[in-house]
Every structure is written in structure tokens, then in C-alpha cells.
């Protein structure tokens, strides 16, 4: 074969390969977008549940907590429940701080579980975001502008007392990794 046909063949093979790769990567990106969306639904529900618990605590334990503390808790819960307030992470952090101030004896039975669920959901959500970002940052994905118009997924970073989830025991705050 002549040099020309060799070149043509190589170009053809390369084209086929890049088409296949693009299709495959688009599938992966679509699937990851679904994963991020589902993880967010779960995280959102877990956060709302925690906020509702905080409202309940503020209402039922107002006397034990004292007026200013109960009001602060109710305000933080309200802030976390209205996403229109802007910075959701800051609002959730404020709620988390207020909740940690509540003495353990006053927490209802589901409180610890709600905290653990928030920790799990946040971790799985960030995991999905990390996987998506890793794939979208690949050189070829960027070059071909795959999903370039989709919003860049954001991590959700709050201080959720995650040692209870990460470590074998609560209060074990050694950094891992």
C-alpha cells in the first residue's frame, strides 16, 4: 500500500477510536450526573430532617435550654430550611454548631441517627462530585468540551462531626489519609 492509503487508514482508525471513546465518555458523564443528582436528593433530605429535629428541640426544650439558646437554635434551623437564604453551607454549619451546644440528655432519640445520615449522605455526594470532576477534567474531555455547558458540580463542605462516621469511634479525630 502507498503511504497515502496508510495515512488514510490510520486516520480512519483514530477517528473510530475517538468516536467510540466520546460515546463511552458521554455515557459515563450522563450516569455520573444522575449519581450526583440522586446523592444530592438524599443529602438534601437528610439536612432537612436534621433541621426539622432542631425545630422540634427548640420548641420542646425551650425552658431547659433557656430563652436565648432556644431562639438561636430556632433561627439557625429556619435559616437552614430556607435555601433562599443564600449560603446553604454556612447556614448548615451554624445549625450544626447550635445543635452541638444542646446537652446530650435533651436530644431526642433520632438526633444521633440524623447526624450520622447527614455525614453519610454528604460523603457519598462529595464522592460522586469527585468522580464527575475527575472525568470532566481529563484532557480529552476538556478538549472536546464534553459536558462543558453543564454546571460544574460543587462539593458540599460542612463540618458535620464526621468523625462519628469516619473513625471506628466517635471523638477519634486523627486525620486519615
Amino acid at each position: 500500500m502507498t503511504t497515502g492509503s496508510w495515512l488514510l487508514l490510520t486516520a480512519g482508525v483514530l477517528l473510530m477510536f475517538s468516536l467510540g471513546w466520546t460515546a463511552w465518555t458521554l455515557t459515563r458523564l450522563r450516569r455520573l450526573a444522575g449519581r450526583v443528582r440522586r446523592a444530592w436528593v438524599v443529602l438534601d433530605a437528610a439536612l432537612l430532617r436534621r433541621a426539622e429535629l432542631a425545630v422540634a428541640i427548640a420548641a420542646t426544650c425551650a425552658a431547659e435550654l433557656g430563652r436565648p439558646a432556644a431562639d438561636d437554635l430556632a433561627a439557625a434551623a429556619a435559616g437552614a430550611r430556607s435555601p433562599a437564604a443564600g449560603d446553604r453551607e454556612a447556614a448548615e454549619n451554624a445549625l450544626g454548631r447550635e445543635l452541638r451546644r444542646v446537652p446530650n440528655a435533651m436530644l431526642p432519640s433520632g438526633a444521633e441517627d440524623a447526624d450520622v445520615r447527614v455525614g453519610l449522605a454528604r460523603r457519598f455526594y462529595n464522592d460522586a462530585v469527585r468522580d464527575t470532576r475527575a472525568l470532566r477534567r481529563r484532557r480529552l474531555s476538556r478538549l472536546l468540551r464534553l459536558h462543558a455547558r453543564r454546571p460544574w458540580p460543587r462539593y458540599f463542605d460542612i463540618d458535620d462531626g464526621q468523625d462519628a462516621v469516619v473513625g471506628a469511634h466517635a471523638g477519634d479525630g486523627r486525620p486519615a489519609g
Partner: protein
Amino acid sequence: MRIGLVCPYRWDVPGGVQYHVRDLAETLRGMDHHVEVLTPAEREEFLPEHVTFSGRAVPVPYNGSMAGVQFGLVSAARARRWLREGHFDVVHVHEPASVSLSLLVCMIARGPIVATFHAATTRSKVLAALGPWARPWLERINGRIAVSDFARRVQVEHLGGDAVVIPNGVHVPAFATGPSLPGHRRGAQAPTIGFLGRYDEPRKGLPVLLDAMRSVVADHPTVQLLVAGRGDPDELEALVGEDLRPHVTLLGELTEADKTAFLRSVDVYCAPNLMGESFGVVLVEAMAAGAPVVASDLDAFTRVLEDGAAGLLVRRGDPADLATGLSALLADPDRRAGLSAVGARVAAGYDWSVVARRILAVYETVALPGGGAVTASTDENGALLGPTPSAQRDDATSGPFRRRVRR
């Protein structure tokens, strides 16, 4: 909840992952969940109820025993059928980052997938090599669990994902109550020290313990060291030497029941390991059996013993430090009772009922309410499931390759 567990290693071969899957399945069933297991095995007939045969595994030597690797069209077809008939709310695969049934299920399943990483040091090399290739399928996993901080670190470094740490479970009640070994009773005249593990492996640290014993014997002339585990008795004989011979008893390999009795019989349990422990289940078992623990200060042990609150930590590989610790503990029954009480409390946190509840929380986090069950991909190759599954050793790449093109 309907849960599908996937064990990548042969069910009929003893191993940590297999035990984990078996115990998790039993515990979850006890909590009224429907649990099915998919696993390779040597013979289909010997599998218990609710355990589905995925095919014979190609044996690969791994970590001293034979682990099964299974990857082919017939396995894929069996996995597909299992997923389709199971209607699982969540599928939980174990050790998916290797060429295994677990990775295969990750490729096929559509829906919530949870994965547990049980890392061992030898494995991380495989993981480093395979990680990037398995990534497209591993990124379908919705929730990742690591059994220890070490496993989590391996996972973070090689696969670039995070994981929730949920430790291995232990059947605490099975260790807490029961008979002692005949002839040995805790608190008897002659104090006993227990060692469990492959005694001919230097990294398990028996030579250090024997060195330490020479000083301990000077303080406590009646002390007995009980050695349980696999190994070459003649080698041990040579290692012990004349001076220690009356103080060392070799029990050999113990059955599960004898092991619990052994841990209940010793006055002190000693884990002088030098390295390479990812988690240290045996420490939890010893604590569950009420034995005060003396262990070397490996990261994993330090964590299980809560920085020395639940057991005595000594410098690894230092016979003098170990001897001091052992002698002091043997001379102080109150301290032993205290450690034993704290140990029992710590061990309770590792009981399967607690661990399974934490795993269940992960399931509930990934499985959206009303989000639908796990299904299999649409590819149909049920024809391969004819009466004679002869295509077992199919070209290993054909499965994933086909999938890559189809979608």
C-alpha cells in the same frame, strides 16, 4: 429491605471476606431483611440456602490461600439472572477493585451499589495497576465502605475516592460466655499468656514474645505461654529452646469453638505483631472474651485499643518493654480486671448487631425511597446458561469489551 451480597472469593475456602459476608448476611436476616448471596464455589451442591452459585473460580494463589478469580461470560450471565430475579433494593459488592465477580456485578447492575474494600498490603499493588482501568465501573458505586483506616487510605490513594469506615464485626456473645479450655482456667494458680496466629511468621512477633518471656519467667516462675495457630512445631521447638520449654504449651490450630474457649482461658492476651495488620479483629475477639490485651503499638492496634485505654500498648519489636508490661500486668489483678471491663465495653461496639446497623444506614442512604430496585443491563446471553456451562474460561476481556461498544 432486599439486599444482594456479592462475595468474590470461593465460598468453600476459609477467608476473612467470606466470613464477613456470611456473618453480615446472617445478622441482616436476623433483622428481618431478605438477603441473597452470589459467590463462586467449587461445587454448587454444597452451597447453603440463599447462596447462589456464580461458577467455578479460576484459582489464584493469594496471601497463602487460594483466592478465586472469576470473570467470564457465563459468570456474567449468572450474575445477570441473579440480579433480575432478586429485585434487590441495594447490591453490596465486596472487594470490587480486582478482576473479580464483584467488578463484574458493578458492570452489569443498574441501581444502588454499595462496595466494601477489605484491603491487604499485598493487594495495593494490584489496585494501583488496575485502579485506572476499573474506574469507569467503580464510579457506579454509590457508597463505599472501608473496613479500616488502612483500607480507606489504600482506597483514597489508588482509586481517588473516599470511603466511610465501618469495621469488621465480631460475634461478641459467642466470645463472652462459654467454657474454658480443659486444664486452663483464667485466674488459676499458674497465670497464662495467650498468643494466637501463624507462629512461624516473624511479622506476627512470636520471637519477640519468647525473648520477653525469659524476663517474665524470672518474675513469675509459674507462668505459662499458650501458643495457638498454624505453623511448623519443630521450628517452634527450636525457637523456644531448653530454658523456656517448661513454660510454653503448643495448642496448634484451633477450631472456632476452641478459639473462643482459648481466649476465655488466658489471663493476658498478647499480640506482639511487628507490622502488617490492617485492623486486628483478634484483639476485639480477645476483649470480647474478657482477656486483658497487651499489644504492640501498630496504628491499627492503637486505634482498636483506643490509645491504650482498653489494653496495654508496648513498643513494637522491643522485648524489654513487652516483658515489663506483661510482668506488671500479671502482678496486678485489679488492673487486669479494669482492662477487661473497658475491653468488654469497646468490643460491644464491634458486635455484628451494631456493625450491621451501621451498614444498613449506608444502604438506606444510597437507596432512594421509591427509587426502584436494582436491575441488570439489558444484554441477554441466557443461552450461555445451558445445561453444561462449558464456556467457563471464556476470553476474559470479551465481557467488558462488548459492553463498552454497546452503550
